[in-house]
C-alpha cells in the first residue's frame, strides 16, 4: 500500500503534468534537452533528483522498479531511492534486470540486454555535452540549433594528438539520429553501444540543471569518432570477472586486503550473481 501521507509518487499532480509534457517532447526530439522546473525532492542533489523526478512522473502502481548505482543494487543511494518509491508509490521492487519494468540507474547500463517495454531512467549530473567548451547556456543552445559541433570535434581530435586516443572513459559524447550531440551521463564508454537501437525507452533526468532528454526505442546512437580513429568501447583490462568468470562484462577493480591484493569483478552485481547461480544450478 502507498503511504497515504503522500500523493502517489510523492509529486503533486501539476508537477507531474509538467514533467510528463517535457518527457513527451523529449521523446519527440531524441537527444534534445528539454528544460523543466525542477522540484525540491526529499534527498540532496547528487542523489539523482533528476532521475527520481522522471521516475516519479512515469511510475504506475503495477510497476516493478530496480535501482542501481554504478551497477550495484545495494549501495546506500540505490537502497534509499528504492525504498522511497516503495513508500510513496507502493511499487514492487527487484534486483533482477529482466523482471524490472522501470530501472533507475546512476552511471551504468545493465549487462543483461534490456527488452521492449522496459524504461531505463538515467541520473544525469551535467546534461550539456558542450559545457566544457562553452559555459554559457545561450551559446550552447545556439551551437545545438546550428548543429555546430566543429569545436567538439577539434577538442576530441586534440585528445588523439596528445594521448593517441580520445581520453574519455566516461560520459563519452554521442550523436543521436545524426542530429543532436548528447551526453549519455557518466556511464563508461563500454556501455555506449548499448544505447544504440535499444528496444527499451531511455530517459535522462538532470535535477540541478533542470533538463530532461530521451532516446526512444530503436534510435540510432553513434559515439563520436574519426575515420582514422574509430570509437573503441573496450576497457584495456583484458580480464575476466574473478567471481563469475564473465569475459564480456564491465569490471571494477576491488582491493581485497591490506597488502594491496586486488581483483576484477563485474560492476553489475545482479548480472554477476545470476551467472554464479546458473553455474551452480
Amino acid at each position, binding site marked *: 500500500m502507498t503511504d497515504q501521507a503522500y*500523493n*502517489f*509518487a510523492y509529486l503533486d*499532480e*501539476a508537477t*507531474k*503534468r*509538467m514533467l*510528463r*509534457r*517535457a*518527457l*513527451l*517532447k*523529449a*521523446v*519527440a*526530439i*531524441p537527444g*534534445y534537452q*528539454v*528544460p523543466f522546473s525542477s522540484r525540491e525532492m526529499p534527498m540532496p542533489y547528487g542523489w539523482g533528483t533528476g532521475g527520481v523526478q522522471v521516475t516519479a*512522473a*512515469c*511510475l*504506475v*502502481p503495477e510497476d516493478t522498479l530496480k535501482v542501481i548505482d554504478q551497477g550495484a543494487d545495494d549501495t546506500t543511494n540505490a537502497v534509499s531511492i528504492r525504498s522511497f518509491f516503495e513508500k510513496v508509490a507502493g511499487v514492487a521492487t527487484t534486483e533482477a534486470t529482466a523482471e524490472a519494468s522501470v530501472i533507475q540507474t546512476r552511471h551504468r547500463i545493465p549487462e543483461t540486454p534490456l527488452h521492449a517495454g522496459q524504461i531505463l531512467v538515467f541520473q544525469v549530473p551535467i546534461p550539456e555535452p558542450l559545457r566544457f567548451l562553452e559555459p554559457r547556456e*545561450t551559446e550552447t*543552445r*545556439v551551437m*545545438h*540549433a*546550428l548543429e555546430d559541433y566543429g569545436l567538439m570535434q577539434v577538442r576530441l581530435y586534440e585528445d588523439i594528438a596528445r594521448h593517441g586516443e580520445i581520453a574519455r572513459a566516461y560520459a563519452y559524447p554521442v550523436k543521436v*539520429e545524426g*542530429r*543532436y550531440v548528447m551526453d549519455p551521463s557518466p556511464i563508461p564508454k563500454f556501455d555506449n553501444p548499448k544505447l544504440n537501437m535499444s*528496444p527499451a*525507452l531511455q530517459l535522462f533526468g538532470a535535477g540541478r540543471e533542470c533538463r530532461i532528454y530521451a*532516446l*526512444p*526505442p*530503436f*534510435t*540510432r546512437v553513434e559515439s563520436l569518432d574519426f575515420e582514422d580513429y574509430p570509437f573503441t568501447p573496450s576497457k584495456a583490462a583484458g580480464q575476466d570477472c574473478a567471481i563469475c568468470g564473465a569475459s564480456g562484462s564491465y569490471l571494477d577493480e576491488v582491493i581485497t586486503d591490506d597488502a594491496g591484493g586486488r581483483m576484477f569483478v563485474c560492476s553489475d552485481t545482479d548480472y554477476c550473481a545470476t551467472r554464479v547461480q546458473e553455474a551452480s544450478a
Partner: protein
Amino acid sequence: MDGLTPGFDHPATDAARAFRMVLDAMAHPGRIVTLDGPVAPAPCSQAACVALLTLADATTPLHLAGAHDCGPLRDWVAFHLGAPLVGPEDATFALGTWDALGPPAAYRQGTPDYSDRSATLIVEVPALSAHGTRLTGPGIETAAHLSVPDPDALRGNAARFPLGLDFLFTSGAQLAALPRTTKLGDG
C-alpha cells in the same frame, strides 16, 4: 453549468496509467493504445478527454477547433483543466478534426534553440487502423503502418525537424502518436 461530466475517479493513479499509455504511443509511433477513463461532452472522444486530463492544465493554452469549440466542451475545459482557450498561434495543445484544425503552419513550431516549444495537436479521426501510411524512424524497429489524415502535410511537418508539431490521433478510446521524427512513406 451543463455538461459537467466527472473527471478521473482516482486522479493520481488514473493519470499515471494514462500517461504511460501516451508515453508508450509517443515512443512507438503508430502503435494504437487504449485510454480508459471518463468522457467529456461531445464531440470529444474518450481518448482525447483522458489525454487532456493527463497533460493539460491552467499553464497550457488550448485551442478548440471547429465543432469542438462548443459551449459544453468549453465549460468542461474551464472546470476540469482551467486551460485558457486561445487561437492556433498561441496554443500548447489543440483539439479538433484535421480539417477543423487547419494548416499545421498556423501553430507554434518551436524555435531553433528551443525546438520543444511547439504545439501538440490532438486530432480526432473517425477510426484508427494499423493499415495505411508506412512509418519509419525512432521508436520503430523496421516499419509501422497507421491510417493518418493528409500524409503530404505530415511529411512536410517531418521535413521541418527538429522544429515541427507532434500529433496525437484519437478515435473513441484509442490513441496513436506521430512525433515530428517519423518519416512517412507511400500509401
